[in-house]
């Protein structure tokens, strides 16, 4: 860890092939200007690791992520968790829009993208550069699925989120609609207006509206599995079995990482 304490820039040198290295390790040095276009394609190329979970409400993804979090911490990694819709700069605006039902599909999409941008600029990106393991509960795929279900243009959304860092692994917890609805019904008193897609005027009954809306979202997730190479986990399996699978996959991506920060 001496390398990081001495400062990345001072320790870096360029080898004969033009790769920037610190000691024997090749690194991706922060470019002077981060722009959406400057985002490296494919693997994100930063020293850290980014694991994200996706799935419809009631798929059990948050449970799985928190179990992964505890395991990583126990192993001594520096882990940071970032939740959907949690930017301190933006969340008041989102809350206002939802409370007063002011959001249209377009502004719903943009305010969530703003929130995600703030978390990307302030935490996700710098932490990955610093070599942390970053965990995200929901990522751009949530926006793609929900916003398309609300009628937004697929291509427009793909370019809107161009600035996002590509995850190391995107776990998709696949669950049949009825199972998810059963879990939600057992856990909650009532469904929220936007959560149930009530803004779309699909149906006056929140439960029925939720069912139709989540069905559309599920279709979008299915379409994204090949498009973004999502790692599918069968979310009908016992929690322990799913977690074992998640840890095994995560483990593989941690072994080849030689520059991760460990918790002091």
């Amino acid at each position, binding site marked *: 860890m001496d390398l990081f304490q001495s400062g990345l820039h001072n320790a870096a040198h360029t080898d004969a092939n033009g790769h920037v290295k610190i000691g024997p390790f090749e690194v991706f040095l922060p470019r002077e200007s981060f722009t959406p276009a400057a985002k490296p394609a494919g693997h994100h190329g930063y020293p850290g690791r980014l694991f994200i979970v996706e799935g419809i409400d009631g798929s059990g993804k948050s449970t799985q992520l928190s179990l992964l979090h505890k395991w990583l911490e126990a192993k001594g990694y520096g882990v940071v968790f970032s939740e959907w819709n949690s930017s301190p700069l933006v969340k008041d605006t989102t809350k206002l829009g939802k409370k007063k039902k*002011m959001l249209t599909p377009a502004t719903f999409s*943009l305010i969530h993208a703003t929130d995600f*941008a703030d978390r990307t600029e302030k935490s996700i990106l710098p932490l990955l550069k610093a070599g942390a393991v970053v965990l995200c509960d929901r990522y751009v795929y949530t926006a793609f699925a929900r916003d398309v279900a609300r009628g937004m243009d697929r291509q427009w959304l793909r370019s809107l989120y161009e600035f996002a860092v590509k995850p190391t692994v995107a776990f998709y917890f696949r669950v049949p609609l009825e199972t998810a609805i059963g879990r939600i019904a057992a856990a909650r008193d009532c469904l929220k207006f936007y959560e149930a897609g009530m803004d779309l005027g699909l149906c006056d009954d929140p439960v029925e509206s939720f069912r139709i809306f989540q069905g559309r979202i599920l279709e979008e997730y299915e379409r994204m599995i090949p498009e973004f190479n999502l790692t599918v986990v069968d979310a009908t399996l016992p929690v322990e079995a799913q977690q074992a699978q998640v840890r095994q996959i995560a483990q593989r991506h941690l072994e080849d990482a030689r520059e991760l920060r460990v918790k002091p």
Partner: protein
Amino acid sequence: MRETYGKKLPGMKLSDLAGKLIVIEGTDGAGRTTQINLLKPWLEEMGHAVLDTGMTRSPLAGDGIRRAKEGNNLGRVTQSLFYATDFVDRLENEIAPALRAGFVVLTDRYIYSLMARAIVRGVDAAWIRSIYSVALKPDAVFYLRVGIEDLIPRVIFSRGFDYWESGMDLYPAHDMYEAFCNYQKALLGEFDRLSGEFAFEIVDASRDAKTVFAVLKARIRGVLERAPAEITLQEYIASRIDRLVYSPERKPATAVASASASSKGFELVPQPFGGSSPRLNGNGRTA
């Protein structure tokens, strides 16, 4: 029929946006606000219902942006998207309904300022253009152009240098004067690049407000007389029916219309087609 810059928002009907969308663009201190304050009463005197709108005035995101700008931690991608949220909220809930009701919409800045600001901060130009591809194409864009040498005295002797207008987030090592010059010069360069692409009508804003006002009046008269874009017979009928039948979708526009009209003491009569009925030719299109 009105067009967008490429993508249509869900639920946005383009066929009946019959009013006029007039954009006043220009850098900080170019005199945009002064001109809008002169143009609005002039247009109203001529009998037009006018909606004026501008950046950060949306009920959804305006306060959020102001709060975010108070701190020193608003990143450039976040900033660009926050402004896009504000813009689209006004586009859907103010601009489009007002155009539907036959208003003249005067907007203080439009997507061009937002693109220029983002681009000079290093945001990808293609990315920001793709976001604003949902914007409506205006009937005219008047770019109040003023060189940096004329801009500086206006700023110094009116309100003084402002952190964001000086681009201090971009040039933190400079003093406010140096930062202001660099930032505004970069913006002017970007506006010049956008000017061809988006067909700006350039107005020399280094002259006094009265002269600029006279130029704008003459050009805006031309815009108002201009026949609306070609529409089909079906679109024409649809737009008229919409005006006769109560539709909850139009609620915001009606509210804006009656408020503005009653305060001025005259009745609002939407005249979406320059006041004259369209002549229809054989194939059902307006001549």
